[in-house]
Each structure stands twice: as C-alpha cells, then as structure tokens.
C-alpha cells in the first residue's frame, strides 16, 4: 500500500506552548484511520497543519506519489490537491440550498473565470442528486441548508466533501450531537467513503471509533503515543495512564 500523506518531525509552538511536538504520521490510500487523544493533545492543530491553516515551525508534510510538499501552499491549493476537511461544528453555507451547496463543492475548476462561465450540466445535476441520495438529503435539495437539522447539516458537509472527490478526508468529530440512528448512518457513509480514499476521523467517542473498525492513532501532548487496533491501544499502559490521569 503506497503512502498518500506523510507527516514527519513536525513541531509547532504557540506563545511558548508546544502544541505539536515532533509528530510523525502516515496514511495510505483507501485507508480509514481514527485519531483519538485527550483535550489539547493537538488533534485539531494536526489537521490545521495538514490543511495549510497553520504553518509548522519545523518538519515536513509530503503528499501523493509525486511527493510534493504541502508546506507553503495555501488552504485552497491544498484542497485542490485533494484534501477535504470537515469541521467540528457543521459548516455549510446556510443561506443557500442544499443543491447549491453541493454544486459548489462538486469537483470542477476552481478559478474565478471558469466559475463565472460555469453552468451546471445535466450530468452535474445527476451527480448532485446521487450524492444527496447517499447522504439522505435527496428530498431536501431545494431547501435552504440553514433550515436543516444538526445531523443533516453534518451529512451535508460530508456530502460536500465527497463531492470534492478528495483523496484524503479529514473529519473532526462527525458524530458529535447526533442521535444513535444518525450516528449509524454517519458510520456507514464514512466506511463507504474509505473504500475509495483515505479517511482520518478525529473522535472522542470510543463506541463510534470501535464501529469504524480501523487502525487507531493516539495523540498525547502533540506526539503519537500509540498506534494500532483499538484493542491494542486501549490495552497499552501508556494510553491507560494518560486517560486515567485526567
């Protein structure tokens, strides 16, 4: 399995506080990975670094088979390279319809001029329709997304990420605030997505992680503490110490 993303020796400091400390992380194509860790372990900062929001003080972030460095690229450029990111809070364009949201996310040239002259083709509309079906929002296409429920917004955001057709999906606490039924649906969507691309899920909820049934990376104080199957890491003495300490 070839490596899609390789983060090595990355450190970042905020006002003297080391949020990420010599972190190394790898993920292959079509792999599902869960990242867990206590608060302040650096999970979100890790995502910030990969997506270009935060510049690390040192280290490398290498992407794809051509091994290009993601450092120095802006967020939009990295997103165009094929990394999608879902925020903790659902962030969709609330004033626009579900369809408009998905159309905007659809993988198409992002330049302003192409966008200006773009008119959706029937194929594009069909694709949007299919995606909406996948995330269970087919009936809501013409609704303003601000009117959707919390869970529906989460799905819409995931749907938008899928519409981007990214090679790596970074998902921050997708199940937060969802009903058990909604969680199940979310798991299905993610597992389905991981068949064709890499998916990194940051999550607190162990039950949810267990259901994802994938390799787990435990972060602590900005570094990798343990890595392996969920059973493996939960039996690791270091991990137990860290979680019990709190």
């Amino acid at each position, binding site marked *: 399995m070839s490596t899609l993303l390789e983060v090595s020796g990355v450190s970042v400091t905020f006002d003297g506080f080391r949020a990420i400390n010599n972190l190394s992380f790898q993920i292959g194509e079509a792999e599902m990975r869960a990242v867990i860790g206590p608060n302040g372990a650096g999970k979100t900062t890790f995502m910030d670094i990969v*997506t270009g929001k935060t510049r690390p003080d040192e280290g490398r972030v290498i992407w794809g088979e051509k091994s290009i460095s993601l450092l120095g690229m*802006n*967020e*939009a*450029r990295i*997103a*165009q390279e094929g990394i*999608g*990111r879902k*925020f903790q809070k659902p*962030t*969709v*364009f*609330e*004033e*626009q319809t579900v369809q*408009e949201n998905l*159309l*905007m*996310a659809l993988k198409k040239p*992002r*330049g*302003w001029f192409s*966008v*200006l002259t*773009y*008119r*959706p083709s*029937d194929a594009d509309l069909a694709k949007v329709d299919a995606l909406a079906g996948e995330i269970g929002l087919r009936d809501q296409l013409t609704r303003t997304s601000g009117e959707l429920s919390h869970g529906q917004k989460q799905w819409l955001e995931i749907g*938008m990420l899928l519409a*981007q057709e990214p090679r790596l999906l970074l998902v921050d606490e997708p199940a937060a605030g969802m009903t058990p039924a909604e969680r199940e649906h979310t798991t299905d969507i993610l597992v389905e997505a991981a068949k064709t691309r890499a998916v990194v899920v940051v999550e607190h909820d162990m039950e949810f992680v267990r259901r994802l049934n994938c390799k787990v990376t435990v972060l602590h104080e900005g570094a990798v503490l343990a890595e392996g199957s969920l059973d493996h890491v939960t039996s690791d003495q270091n991990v137990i110490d860290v979680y019990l300490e709190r």
Partner: protein
Amino acid sequence: MQRSFIAKNPSVLIFLSILALFTLLVTVMSEGFGVGGISTSFIKTLGKTLCLCLIALALDLIWGYTGILSLGHFAFFGLGGYMIGMWLMYERTRLIVVDSLTSTEIPPTDGEVIDAIGNQIFGVVGSSEFPLIWAFADSLSIQLILVLLVPGVLALIFGWLAFRSRVTGVYLSILTQAMTLALALYLFQNDSGLRGNNGLSGLQNLPGVTASQDHVSLWFFWASAAALGAGYVLCAWLVSGKFGSVIRGIRDNEARARFLGYSVETYKLVIFTLTACIAAVAGALYYPQAGIINPAEIAPIASIYLAVWVAIGGRGRLYGAVIGAAFVSLLSTWFTGGQAPDINLGFYTIKWVDWWLVLLGLSFVLVTLFAPKGIGGLFDIVVERRAAKEANQ
C-alpha cells in the same frame, strides 16, 4: 434543461422595464425634448441619482453579496470622475485657447498652445507646467480607458495587499477608509497635478458641442440610465450563477469556501476590482452632470453615506441598493436644498437643513436595529404573504 438567465431572474426584467419607463417619462417631461415639466437642473439631479444608484449596486455586490464592507468606493468613483474630467477640461480649454490665439496676427505654434492651456488650467495652483499624469489628457479614447484602468489598478494593488494579508471584517473597512483618506489628502495638495482643492471645473460643457444644456443634460441622463441598466444586468448575472454562490459562500463562511478549494483572496480581489470599475464608470458619468469635481468629494464620509444608502435600501439584493440610493439621496437633496418646509413648534423652529443629518443618522441606527434587510425587506413580506395565500388556497 437550462432556463435562460432572464427567465430565472424576473426581477431583472421588471427593473429594466421600470427604468425604461422612467427614462421615457423624464424625456417626455423634459425641457430639451418634451413638454418642459421638469427643469434641466432637476434632470441633472435625476441623472446624478442614477449614477449614485450604479455605485450603490457596486457596493451591494461587494458588501451585500461578498461581505466586504468597503468604505473606499467613492475613491474609485472620484477617480473615474477625475479621469474624464481631465479630458473635458483639457479639450475645452484647448478650444478656448486656440480660439483666442488665432485672432492674433501670427498663428500660434503647438508649443504656445500647450503653454497657454497649461497656464489656464494650472495658473490657479501657481504653475503652468503639465504634470505627467496629464500626458494623455488630449485623447478622449485613452482617457476613457483610464477611467477604468486607474481605479481598477488602484483597487487591484490595494486589494491584493489587503486580502493577501487576510485582513477582514472591520479591520478591512477601516483600511479602505484609510485608503480613501490618503487619496483625498493627496489630491488636496496643490502639487498633486489635479489642481488641489480647486478640483476640475466646467465639466458640464462638452467641448465642441454647441447644443444647449437642456439637451446635453438629457444625453447624460440617458447614458446614466443605460449604464445603470447594463450594470444591473451585469450584477444580476454575476450573482445568479455559481460565481454568486461562491461569493455568498465567502461572505457566510470564508473558511468553508477556502477548504472547498476556492481561493478566497482571488475572488475577493476580482469582486473588489470589478466593483471599483463599476464605481469609476458611475463617477465618470456623474461629474460631467455635476460640473465640478474636487477632493472633498472623495472624503471618507461620502463612502460611508453610500453604505448608509445601501443599508437602508436593503443589502444583499440588487434592487434594494438602487432603491436605497435613489430614495435617500433624493430625500437628502430635498431636505438639505432648503425646499422642505420648516416645522414651527412655537418655541422652536425645526430647520431641515440643520436637522436632516440628525434624522438620517438616527434613522440609520433604527434601520440597522429593527430592519436589517432595509426597505427591500418590505418586498419580502409582500412576497411571503402572497405565497402564504397561495398555499392556503
């Protein structure tokens, strides 16, 4: 299948029809071509108002749709005016100078003509040399290009600097205000090359045209109406498609747009520059009707009034901006022009010349507090009522 742009946006058609009707009505009522119910000076006021509506459209595009409150668009408006004003003033002075010089015994040389023009134009600031920026003032076509180019390039440079460093929100507003102030202060200097605080004057006279102001004012009125119509269609087209989706997306959630792969900075820059150009066109049409342009026109306060109009009209909808600009600026003219009747309370007489700004300021607060959608929001209520009625039936 795709529906045509106009069919999807009936409001555009409605707007264009109303504008056409209004233009026709004004023409019929004018002194120049019609029965003379409307004075020429009022035609000019109406023409200027149309230009203000156009710049309000530009502000609505950048503020209402993209979420960037620019307090600097009057700088671009003014620059557009200056660019066309340079040609108008140069050409008119040249005609006068040539006329006076040919009456002498010896025909003038080119150098003498240029010196005399320079003296006429810059004598008031104690100079007779043509500054470099007047290099193309003798060419209408180049000056017309500069109407777009100068404000456009300024917007491009400023926008590039500002957006690149991710200045947003109120910070950006303050920065655009600072830009306007810097430009105004620069133009106030006598050696700015644009006659300092004297500004450019006599712009209402079209060089070489002998037609009376009754006619000229109507030509400009028509041009303004055409520009407003074209601007409206352009803006409506911009905001209706995916481009519109993206800029509204940037307004509502910049980070999401960025992580979807849209270069937010580029989009902002495009919109900023484009609206600067629209503002410049509006300015280039406005000042020949006003007759004079000076740096005070560019002062930050003007741009803020513009924001007031758009807010009162209802931002985020194009007709709102137009209604706001037309309504408030005409009302302003009426109140501050001294036509409005004073109210005698017995112990105190309310003079509208004095109290209009107080009223405007307070009504602005009230609109922001209680009617954030502005006058345009009223239409929503009407539309919703009708929809509800239909649903009931």
